[in-house]
């Protein structure tokens, strides 16, 4: 970023400060929680410290803004504890000052993530709390992204905080649950002004910086490889463009290269998991200059691995698509028989395979049926257009 004038420079300084706080607030919060502060109380203390920063930083920002915020927030927290204790006329519990020294950012972030993805929280609560406490987003932004009233999101977050406060962290956190929450945020896509995919990538990068787990790297690679295709997934007026028809010159090669590099390093550790396998499939697609260059045999092998790891009917259905491409539509239709009838998108896959097998009448009927079952408007419209394309042909 370069300043092109004084006014502009001042503006950018403000923006920089906003970005800085967005990054620092969750870190400061994490330090307080690690030191034993209760979640909601820690958040209040951080807010107090921020107010103090707004008052005092214009006279000169401290050299170590994070250290400054931690010190002030911890003091505010102790003040509250002391006054509460005094008010209740009981002995002040002895809060030992934590040892001095640099705060352990990465461990703290991980601890905060474990707390936000607590097993007693529903997925939607864990998502909201993670975006608020670790992502540093405002309740208003999160509410807008998920298209609910701000008061509803505020309730969801404060309930989640209460749950976490009463349960606390019991035993080692579950990294798998954290990864599923981050994946959920990524998959929700683009809600309102807030780009949830970018937020999910930011959080996963933060997590990956502090952990050696190859599945964290696998998830990050998966996100980058999908994010790389973002521009080509929709037409200018919002219609869905399937993978085979995307303009591959618009794929972001920098993100693809980064994703593949991260994935390669993860796979080298030889501890395969579902996110690495999913990322490997995304990497094979990203690698193909043209759709016909796709190495479907390898894609199919990865789906076999993924199915063995997850035993998920959704994976089984996606594997059928790969079978159809690798071994032909009739083989695909045979494999489809083993996929339960209630798996989402099964009818759409069946329609596509029937079309490729030349059975246009059945394909058209199934595209229509699939459109009625679609879970998103863009998908429904896409499937309706497929049915319309075959109208009068079969």
């Amino acid at each position, binding site marked *: 970023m370069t300043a092109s004038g004084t006014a502009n420079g001042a503006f950018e300084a403000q923006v920089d400060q906003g970005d800085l706080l967005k990054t620092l607030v969750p870190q400061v919060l994490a330090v307080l929680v690690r030191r034993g502060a209760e979640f909601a109380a820690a958040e209040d203390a951080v807010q107090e410290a921020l107010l103090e920063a707004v008052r005092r930083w214009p006279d000169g920002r401290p050299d170590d803004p994070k250290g400054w915020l931690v010190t002030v927030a911890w003091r505010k927290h102790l003040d509250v504890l002391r006054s509460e204790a005094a008010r209740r006329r009981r002995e002040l519990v002895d809060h030992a000052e934590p040892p001095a020294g640099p705060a352990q950012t990465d461990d703290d972030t991980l601890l905060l993530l474990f707390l936000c993805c607590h097993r007693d929280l529903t997925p939607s609560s864990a998502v909201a709390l993670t975006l608020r406490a670790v992502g540093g987003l405002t309740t208003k932004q999160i509410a807008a992204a998920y298209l609910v009233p701000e008061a509803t999101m505020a309730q*969801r977050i404060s*309930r989640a905080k209460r749950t976490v406060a009463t349960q606390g962290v019991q035993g080692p956190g579950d990294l798998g649950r954290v990864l599923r929450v981050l994946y*959920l945020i990524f998959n929700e*896509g683009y809600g309102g002004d807030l780009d949830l995919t970018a937020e999910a990538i930011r959080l996963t990068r933060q997590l990956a910086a502090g952990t050696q787990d190859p599945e964290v790297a696998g998830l990050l690679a998966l996100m980058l490889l999908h994010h790389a295709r973002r521009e080509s997934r929709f037409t200018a007026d919002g219609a*869905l463009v399937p993978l085979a028809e995307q303009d591959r010159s618009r794929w972001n090669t920098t993100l693809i290269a980064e994703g593949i590099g991260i994935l390669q390093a993860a796979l080298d550790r030889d501890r395969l998991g579902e996110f690495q396998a999913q990322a490997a499939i995304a990497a094979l697609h990203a690698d193909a200059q043209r759709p016909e260059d796709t190495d479907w045999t390898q894609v199919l092998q990865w789906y076999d691995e993924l199915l063995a790891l997850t035993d998920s009917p959704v994976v089984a259905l996606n594997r059928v698509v790969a079978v159809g491409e690798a071994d032909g539509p009739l083989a695909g239709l045979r494999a489809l028989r083993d996929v339960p009838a209630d798996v989402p998108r099964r009818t759409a896959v069946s329609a596509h395979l029937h079309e490729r097998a030349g059975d246009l009448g059945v394909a058209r009927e199934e595209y229509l049926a699939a459109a009625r079952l679609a879970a*998103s408007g863009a998908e429904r419209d896409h499937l309706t257009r497929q049915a319309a394309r075959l109208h009068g042909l079969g």
Partner: protein
Amino acid sequence: MAKYLLLKHYRGGPKQMPNAETPMDQWTPQEVTDHIAFMDRMADDLRERGQWVSGAALSPEGTFVRFDGEGRPPVTDGPFAETKDVVAGWMVIDMDTLEQAHEAAAYLSSAPGPGGLPLQEWIEVRPFLGNPTTVTE
């Protein structure tokens, strides 16, 4: 995490259970008050749980309207007293699962009617179409 529309019908849908067959104007005023209070409480509970999106009651009579060509006023028709299906009101809720949405609908259907007994009226649950997910293949 998905949104669901809960539709309350005056008429339409499957055959109503006995307690839902008496029209509301034949209830006692207290029964009407209790019924409405139940729904307000339900909305408050949903707000408190962070699951509320919106809701409203609708006037039972409406008008059908259509475009009649450039520069011409809209054409209206109705109201039709004999309409088979009339929507009385709706709620939009944000739930983790379809099962939860069904539980909320069943709870709404337990709202008191004549004699303070559950109405057991049919509530229609319609999922919203969302955004396509980022990961598709």
